């Protein structure tokens, strides 16, 4: 019974985030320009929620751990830079609907991309810890696992920033 309640509670989190996205995308009564009124903490929170959504769905999979074990430390550093670049490009440079046009690239990188990626790392760490994915791991293995999971999490953060 306790296990069932725990599983339902865990499943409810991505379900709630999915409902949030659906409401934002499918609801017709949201006025144009309303998203421009989101404050800076709100926008960071959205990125964190997006990162959490992707990290939660992938942290329990065996493949993420296998990729982390197979990756060399240099490969993991490369993946980290790729994640940061993609997070920045998708939100600010790729020209998708909803991207912020007010900030200069450097300002956007400092204000959103760097804190956003830190949130991706935090969400990945939290989800791996929740699912026992870091049990018995050394510091370097922890870093590799977190960076590998932060790659899809950064795509989730970028998507949340644009969609929600």
């Amino acid at each position: 019974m306790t296990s069932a309640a725990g599983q339902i509670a865990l499943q409810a989190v991505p379900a709630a985030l999915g409902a949030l996205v659906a409401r934002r995308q499918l609801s017709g009564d949201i006025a144009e320009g309303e998203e421009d009124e989101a404050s800076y903490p709100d926008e960071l929170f959205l990125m964190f929620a997006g990162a959490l959504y992707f990290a939660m769905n992938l942290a329990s999979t065996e493949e993420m751990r296998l990729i982390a074990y197979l990756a060399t430390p240099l490969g993991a550093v490369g993946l980290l830079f790729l994640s940061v670049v993609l997070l920045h490009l998708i939100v600010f440079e790729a020209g998708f609907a909803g991207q912020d046009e007010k900030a200069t690239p450097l300002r956007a990188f400092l204000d959103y991309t760097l804190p956003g990626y830190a949130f991706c790392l935090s969400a990945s760490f939290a989800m791996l810890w929740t699912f026992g994915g870091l049990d018995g791991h050394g510091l370097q293995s922890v870093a590799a696992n977190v960076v590998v999971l932060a790659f899809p999490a950064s795509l989730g953060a970028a998507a949340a920033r644009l969609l929600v």
Partner: protein
Amino acid sequence: MTRRKSPPVRRTVSRLQCACALAGFLVTVFVIGLLARSAFGDMEPPDLSAHAVSMRRSSIGWIVAVKVTNGGDLTAAGVEIEGEVGDERVGTTLDYVPGHGEKQATLVFTAADRPAPQLRIAGWSEP
């Protein structure tokens, strides 16, 4: 009726933005530092050892919890652990033991008396 045009909003950088940028930079650099330390050093192969950490009696025999420690930098996959008590030899396999990490396995012995198993790592593979 004329409408007054509102002046352009000048984006100022708040303390919160500076703090978030700094925190994001520090967290990212910390993780890069952790990985870079390993990237530019020699990676030691897996160095595995096993020892019993607890033992209890159950209906199927003696349950022995075995902790496997990896002192190397690289992850070992398919780690085979063998335990021996008298003529009885049992074994189990761990999927992965990460570098500088540890994992726990369980061996079951059917001996009547409390066993003192000889534990050894039979082998492993690369992930």
